Structures are given as structure tokens and as C-alpha cells.
């Protein structure tokens, strides 16, 4: 009798094909593939459950409240505040992006750029777009499609130290505001530099005048 005819459980001599998984390369391959194929997706499913139970419940109630809040505050009131904030460099790159992102959410928040003179628009965009991730620490509705920059990192922190999670959220938000102010000012500087270097000074002078003109008309309308 050849060893090939011996079944793994040893008793029967009638089997003509080898069923010993441990010694057959093809069966080993298939078994390996099956185990790991399922294993891979099981691991993925586990991550999904982790995300779904860990992130969704808090997120859903938070989003619900924030939507309601934005309804109560109303876009009109925010538009007024935004126009005021656009006048000063410090508020232009902090308060204005903050209100825009919370009220209009990504990507409509960039439309508030229309309240600014042309030369400030690139810096406003830079500051605003740089806030669409820090904002998700407290206002996840503002950028629902890109939560995981914050949610990914913070999920790890939450597991280790839940107190640090809250502090991290607050700091991400606040440092975010400092960073966008810095970023806005730097980009404003670069924009002005490129306007001068590229010989666009005359064009932008004209834009500024048009803007001032538009502002005056708007004020007259408001008075009348």
C-alpha cells in the first residue's frame, strides 16, 4: 500500500484520492485562500462595526442639533455678521470663515468670498478651506464627507484617554482658528506680492474702485 491511499483518519484503505489537506499543495492553497479571503472581509467588517457604533450615534445627534441651530440663527443674520467681519484682517480670516463654514458648510462656504474685494479673495479661500477639517471637531455637519481626518485621529485618542479627547477637540478647533489667521495673512501677502510682480497693479486698482463703488451703492440702498 502506498501512503497516498491512506486517509487522514487512518482507517479506510478504499480511498483512491488523497484527502490529506496537510500534505496536498492544491488543497492547502485553496484552504489558505478561503480562510484569508473571509478573514480579510471579517476584519473589514469589524472595522466597520467599530466605526458605526463608535462614530455614528454621537455624530447623528450632533448633526441634528447643528442643523436645527443653523435654522434658528438664519442665513440672513449671518450674512450681516459676515459682511462686517470682512472689513478687518483679523476677523476676515477667523470669524468670517468660521461663520461661513458652520452656516453654509463645505463647499458653499466659499461663496461668502463675494463680499470681499478681489485682492482678498485668495486669502479668504485659503483660510476658509483650511478650517473645513478643524470645524468637524464640534460641527460635523459642516463637512460630512471629510470627517475622518478628525474622526480617524480622535478615535485613537478616545480609546486611550477620553479626557484628552475633549481637550483635543477644543484645541483642534482653536488652533485651527489661529492657523487660518496666520495662513490668511501669509496668503494675502503672497497675493499682493504676485499682483505687483505680475504687473496686475492697475487691474486690481480698478477692482478695488469697483468694489468701493458697489459698497457705496449698497449703503445708499440701505439708507433709502
Amino acid at each position, binding site marked *: 500500500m502506498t501512503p497516498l491511499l491512506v486517509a487522514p483518519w487512518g482507517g479506510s484503505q478504499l480511498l483512491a484520492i488523497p484527502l490529506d489537506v496537510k500534505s496536498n499543495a492544491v488543497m492547502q492553497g485553496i484552504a489558505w485562500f478561503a480562510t484569508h479571503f473571509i478573514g480579510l472581509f471579517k476584519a473589514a467588517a469589524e472595522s466597520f462595526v467599530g*466605526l458605526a457604533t463608535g462614530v455614528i450615534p454621537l455624530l*447623528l445627534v450632533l448633526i441634528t*442639533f447643528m442643523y436645527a441651530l443653523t435654522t434658528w440663527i438664519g442665513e440672513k443674520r449671518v450674512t450681516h455678521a459676515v459682511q462686517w467681519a470682512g472689513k478687518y484682517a483679523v476677523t476676515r480670516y477667523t470669524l468670517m470663515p468660521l461663520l461661513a463654514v458652520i452656516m453654509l458648510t463645505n463647499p458653499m462656504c466659499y461663496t461668502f*468670498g463675494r463680499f470681499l474685494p478681489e485682492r482678498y*479673495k485668495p486669502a479668504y479661500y485659503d483660510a476658509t478651506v483650511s478650517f473645513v477639517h478643524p470645524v468637524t471637531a464640534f460641527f460635523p455637519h459642516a463637512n460630512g464627507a471629510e470627517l475622518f481626518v478628525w474622526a480617524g485621529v480622535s478615535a*485613537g485618542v478616545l480609546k486611550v484617554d477620553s479626557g484628552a479627547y475633549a481637550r483635543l477637540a477644543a484645541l483642534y478647533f482653536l488652533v485651527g482658528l489661529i492657523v487660518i489667521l496666520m495662513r490668511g495673512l501669509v496668503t494675502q501677502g503672497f497675493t499682493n506680492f504676485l499682483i505687483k510682480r505680475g504687473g496686475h497693479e492697475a487691474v486690481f486698482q480698478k477692482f478695488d474702485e469697483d468694489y468701493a463703488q458697489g459698497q457705496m451703492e449698497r449703503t445708499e440702498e440701505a439708507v433709502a
Partner: protein
Amino acid sequence: MTTDFPAVRINKGAGGWGPGLVVRVHGDRNIVLSVTGGDEHPVAKRIAELTGGRVVNAFNSGAPDDQVMCAVINCGGTARSGVYPKKRIPTVNVFTASPGGPLQKYITDDIYVSGVGVSNVETAEAGTPAIGDDGAETGQASQPPQPDGSDAAVNSTAVGEVKKESAFSRFIIKFGGAIGYVITSLLNAGREGVKLILNTVIPFMAYVALIMGIVNYTGLANWIARSVSPLAGSLWGLLLLGIITGLPILSPFLGPGAAIAQIIGVLMGAQIATGALPVRYALPTLFAIDGQVGCDFIPVGLSLGEAQSETVDVGVPAVLFGRQLTSPLAVLIAYGFSFLV
């Protein structure tokens, strides 16, 4: 002549739903039905004032359906929101409810608008077709009645005799209205929230989970961790990461959908969870992996802000070059604050 009556456009208000309605008086069909409880609703008064119709308070007297031009409701749920649309009566909801509930299929955008305030009601441009026009009666210029100053709203209420209500029942009605408003906006916010989670967040979660599954199961996670940890585990490494993400030639490609930043975010989170990275490094890490944010979107973002083409020409390099400086600077600022975490 029905066209002697001006058409009135009713737009949705903040948080409201629907593209808006245009209504006008057609012969006998001139009633603005106020179904809000208490006095006639100001929105109903305003519509009547501009159309030349009359307000009927549904709580005081009934009105035959074929004489109702439109109904003004304050429904936060789904019942009244559906009843009038089901009868094909144009429905103006002063609350922000969007279609839902058992009558949802009747609540269509040609007949329903919500979140409407007095300021959302305006005279339509001459010739604007209104609901119920038979197509034959357009093109004739219609003169809006001149609202005569401050007491216009008062005049228009003179149509129906209003029962005098006691101060107490007034208070109850006001209080009920306020509660209704709060509940409606919360309910609607919940509906919007579920929509966002279902359409945007969960699909992304599925994708992240799949990637995470592959990365974890194949051991790639450990490999990435070994190569990224030295970067994310020291100030110099984080600064280098910030410089790399801020590279003007690289950042526009790293940007789209923040897909890469999000994956790295999840991986970093996993490293922090296992204790491979100290918790306080989370803060500078958040900025280091995000130096490229929005660099793929500059021209679109600028045009959303109605920028001129010259501004776009100057703005794109200004933002890209600015990032080379501000991306590592942001990491430095965050590192300074990281001791507070």
C-alpha cells in the same frame, strides 16, 4: 378679468424646502386660507395684500376648496403638510418641514413650499405664469396694488371678522406656536442629519472600513506604522510631513476629497490607540497630514466667491506658495499647543 390680479411669488425661507410657488387670484378663487391657529398668520395677510385676495381663518370659518387660492399652514409634522397638497391646493408652510409621512407623495415642489416668512412673499414679475393659469392669460402686464405704507397689513385684515381672544388664549397659542417651531426644526434637522449620514458618511465608512480591513489583516498596518511612526513621533518628522504635504507640485494631487488625509488620519488614530504614538502628538499630526487641504480646489473655490479671472490667475500660485510656508508653520503652532492636550 382674472389677469387684473397680480401674481405673487412665494419663496422658501431659511431652512425651507421647494423652489417656490407663484399664485394669483382667479375669479372666485381668491381665499388665502390661514390654518395656523390664533389670528390670521402674517404670511397669509401678506399674500392676500399682494394678490388682492382675502384671508379666511380656517379656525373661525370654513371655506369651500374651490375658492381657496392657497393655504398657509404651520405644520411641523406631516399631516397638514400633506392634506392640502393632496387636494392640489397650493400650500405654504411657515415651518421648515420637508416632504415626509404618509402623504409624502402628494407633497410635490410645484404645490408646496416651506419655511416661508413674510419677507419671502413678493410680487412676481409681470407675465410670470401662476398656478391655475390656463396658459391663455399671460403676457398682460399686471399692476401690483400699491401697499400704502405702514398700515397696509392692517387694512388687509379687515376682510374677516376676527373673534377677540383673551390674553390667556393668545399666550397659549403663541406658546404652542413656539413649541411647534422648535420641534419642527429639530425634527427636520434630524431628517437632514439622517440623510447626510446615509448618503455621505456611511458610504465613506464602508470604504474606510474596507481599506482598514485590508491594511490591518495583511500586516500592512504594522509596516506603515513602522515607517510613519518615526515621522509622526517627533517634531522634526512632523515638520517634514508638513513640508511634504505643502509642496506646491504635490499638494493639488494629495487634495481630492481629503481621501489620503483621511486614510492617514485613521492609521494615525490606530497607532495612538495602541500606544505607539503619544496622545499629545495627535494635535500637530492633524495639521501635518492636512497641509494640502483644498489645494486641488482653488480655482473652483475662488469662482464660487465670484472672483475675476485675474484673481484666479494670481490666487492659485499665491495659495500654493503660501502653503509651503504655512503648512510646516501650522505644525509648529500646533506642537506648541500640544502640551495642553
